[in-house]
């Protein structure tokens, strides 16, 4: 059942997750710019963190849906 509160909740979750992933990506870019030789490690750490947030986002999104 898709009700308006559910949709609003889903939207909020997406905003939150988007902000979180955006921040991780931005920080990773900064870090890579500062230390290009560590880009591999930073990328891995970034993907892991982003994946965790994404996972929470998806879980909440589907529960709300």
């Amino acid at each position: 059942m898709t009700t308006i509160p559910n949709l609003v909740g889903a939207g909020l979750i997406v905003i939150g997750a988007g902000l979180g992933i955006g921040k991780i990506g931005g920080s990773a870019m900064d870090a890579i710019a500062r230390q290009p030789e560590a880009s591999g490690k930073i990328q891995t750490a970034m993907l892991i963190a982003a994946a965790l947030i994404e996972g929470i986002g998806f879980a909440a999104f589907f529960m709300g849906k």
Partner: protein
Amino acid sequence: MLISRKTIQLFIATVFAVLPVFTFANADTTHVAKAAHAEVVNHEGDAPKEVVSEEVKAQEERAEFIQHHLLDSHDFHLFSYGKESGHEKHVGFPLPVILWEDGLHFFMSSEFHHGEAVAESNGKYFAINHHDGMVYNTDAKGTFNVDEKHHTTNTKPLDLSITKNIVMILFVALLMFVMFRNLGKSYGKNGGIATGAGRFFEPIILYVRDEIAIPNIGEKHYKKYMSHLLTVFFFIWFLNMFGLTPLGVNVTGNIAITAALAIITYLITTFTANKNYWGHIFWMPGVPPLMRIVLAPIELLGTIIKPFSLTIRLYANMVAGHIVLMSIIAMMYTFNNVAGSGFSFILAFVLSILEILVAGLQAYIFTMLTALYFGSANEEHHHDEEAHH
């Protein structure tokens, strides 16, 4: 993604040059249905008084088409035509249905007549529910009992059918087997150098080994996980890519498939875990005893959340990609004019490129996280090492 300005100009010009073809094709539904992920569209030639209801109907039809595209199916449906004349024809081929309900039932999916008829086997009646495309136990007339929340209350048989998804899985498995076996053989023949398609895949295999497996699992233990990691990576990647072809079989966007992949990861992690791993879960070192008792259930829950998030991530990414892509393609028919449809076309094109990227990325992330979990199962006395530093 870098696209030079000249290319964009050329591309826009091409799009507008080609647009009339698509808008004309709109009137002729068979072409459209053949062309892509398309669906049966509205009809320009209908009587004016019916226009509003037709439009609504068409939109509902599109939503339903997208919904059905995402689901598994018991027959391999390629396209349909002739709906406006009243005799809709489906082109495709039936697949075997294997059910377990007080005994084995085996028949071809053609007996369902594309979900319109009730199939009878060994005295049992089965019908496909229109909403989720699954087989339910029914009576001879094929009635579905529905509760007040619109949930079907009929029971389901254990459905071991060779569905469309299974066909795709078998196809990809065969493809992988032939391709990688040839790659493996080519080394012996050619003095240690890959030939053919293997030249493209060898660096990817090495990437999985050097960038995913070794950093996350460690030089000592990575070897026993390589088979699983490589298989998972290529399996997901190929299926994601096949999902983007006009056939559009949405295998990795099926929750049962992704759940199976994640469960295998979970089982391997659990059964190859060392003492240190379990120590970290049940008796977290380095924290007060009271905290250890509190942390144990949380950590235990964490081990279950990990495969769950793997499942949902892959599923949701692929489903979301397919829904958005198909919605934009459907918008082409909703707009039904040069500007709107052209815009949708460009959007769909760009999104398709993005989806190709996502196909690889999701395969990479799934493999990476799998390797990470394997790595955590094999970690050794990390704290002692840290004390030395």
